[in-house]
């Protein structure tokens, strides 16, 4: 865990070696990304999400967990902008507090998938042979399950809670990273600068951390962005089924599960939390697509 973690904050050695080329690449990427209006719209949504998550206590007009029972199932009004749910809780305040939970779900579950998946991909790609066969068979088995089903199975084993839902969503997304990192490692491994590093006596770990991984960064970044969206969606689904976040936590999927029985009486308490999930996922998908186009302009046309 520790080693992979240091990779992301330590791409400097490469920057120093080939400063012009790498620096130029990232500047180009950002320039191209800024020109992509749709991607910037995605970034804007994510910006709002992060802002809401950080400043939730200051932004939310009411208590997210303790409602006023006499104000049950109030339609949207000036007092309750998005209405109240069956327990008299302000839907807007709950959505605002839910933003932080969604960010947490995205970061933790994708963090698990990223770290474990990249480690597996590097081991399989760099060392090859039986290690490759073993790891990729494992990945094949994981891919033999539809993701939601595998997540359901894992939560069944671990027991329903937000923490376990995040672990489950993390595990089901490991194969994506393992595959992408492995194929990038395979293409980098045969280059001359890796051969040169070997010739001057670098250890495997040095080569992997300083040369192989930084050069696989582009596909990893794209995949991470896209997977955060999917992860939030999958975790919300688990919570909706009652297998993730538990009431009264204002997690968006759990809010839908809470309000589902009152669809007829208080449709707003179903509409808005779902809209929040959709916009968040859309934001990550738009930015992810934009990043992919920006990192590989050949794909664009």
């Amino acid at each position, binding site marked *: 865990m520790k080693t992979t973690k240091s990779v992301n904050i330590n791409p400097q050695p490469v920057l120093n070696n080939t400063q012009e080329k790498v620096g130029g690449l990232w500047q180009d990427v950002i320039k191209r990304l800024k020109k992509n209006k749709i991607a910037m719209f995605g970034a804007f949504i994510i910006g709002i999400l992060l802002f809401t998550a950080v400043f939730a206590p200051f932004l939310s007009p009411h208590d997210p967990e303790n409602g006023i029972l006499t104000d049950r199932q109030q339609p949207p009004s000036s007092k309750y902008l998005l209405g109240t749910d069956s327990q008299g809780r302000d839907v807007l305040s709950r959505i605002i507090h839910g933003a932080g939970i969604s960010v947490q779900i995205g970061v933790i579950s994708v963090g698990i998938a990223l770290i474990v998946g990249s480690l597996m991909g590097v081991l399989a790609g760099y060392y090859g042979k039986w290690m490759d066969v073993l790891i990729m068979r494992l990945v094949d*088995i994981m891919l033999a399950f539809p993701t939601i089903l595998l997540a359901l199975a894992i939560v069944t084993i671990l027991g329903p809670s937000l923490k376990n839902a995040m672990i489950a969503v993390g595990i089901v997304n490991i194969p994506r990273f393992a595959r992408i990192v492995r194929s990038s490692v395979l293409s980098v491994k045969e280059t001359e600068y890796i051969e040169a590093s070997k010739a001057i006596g670098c250890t495997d770990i040095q080569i992997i951390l300083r040369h192989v991984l930084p050069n696989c960064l582009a596909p990893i970044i794209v995949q991470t962005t896209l997977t955060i969206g999917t992860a939030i969606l999958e975790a919300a689904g688990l919570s909706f089924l009652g297998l993730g976040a538990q009431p009264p936590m204002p997690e968006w999927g759990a809010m839908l599960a809470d309000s589902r029985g009152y669809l007829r009486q208080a449709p707003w308490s179903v509409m808005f939390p779902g809209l929040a999930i*959709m916009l968040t996922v859309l934001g990550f*998908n738009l930015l992810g697509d934009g990043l992919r186009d920006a990192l590989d302009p050949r794909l664009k046309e």
Partner: protein
Amino acid sequence: MLNYIIKRLLMLIPVLVGVSLLAFSIIHLIPGDPARIILGERATEASILALQEKLGLNQPLYIQFLTFLKNILKGDLGTSIITNEKVSYELLTSFAATLELTFVAMIIAIVVGIAAGTIAAIRQYSIFDNISMIGALVGVSMPIFWLGLLMIWAFAYKLGWFPASGRLDVALNVPRITHILLIDSLLNGNFQAFKNTLWHLAMPSLALATIPMAIIARMTRSSMLEVMKQDYIRTARAKGLPEKIIIFKHAIKNAFLPVITVIGLQVGLLLGGAVMTETVFSYPGLGRRLYIAIMARDYPVVQGGILLISVCFVLVNLIVDLTYSFIDPRIKLD
């Protein structure tokens, strides 16, 4: 070709063993004694011992796994703890319902997705292109359980056009032969039941179709755009072929390969996605049966359901791979 099929089938063995190992593990990885958890806190020692005996939990682990495998091969998945029905029977009947739902959803997704993607590609940057591609982007990001709830609110509660749940009105019961109601009702010559089944299928299948429809539309569009740039399309235009023939005879066929990959992947994902849709619409399919089993800690049904869905998923993926070579002989399989 035959060699490739045999090789792929052999490669399935470790995957299937892994899948059954995971299904088997579910009951053993839950913390604590499964029999005690299943029966709850107030169970007597005697009933716990009896259940342990019945589930074979008192035998060594490897023997339990081998017995499990042997029973699977015999088609015996045990009995449900809650309903006392045979798991294989329960799963197959609810699987028929899911197949029906998935089939209708897939038809909607393929027809609408390919049509929208093709038109969007031909009229690139037109209003239709923009609207359908924004629609597709939103569709991919859509939580289908939420979409399902919105559909129930709008079309069942507000407008009253479609039923909010179920498969068939109780009054119209047809004798079950295949358990696929669209077929059963036709076999019985009961067209009213056929129409009623379709009416019940409308909302869940549309909800289930949303994500694959969006993905298929995007894939078709980009694949068509790619093909329309090829030299042979320019040649076809240069020799004066009408645009219709160029599109239908030359472009679509070649643009289809990546679309087929996506369609195949979606079929598998639909089987999993059915868990959400069926729960929202109270549709008595495999996904909902599995969900009920998970909530009730009915482990034999959970094991069987996971096994069944994964085996289907793996087989669908294999069929997709094999289809390539039929459609595009340029692809070499090895």
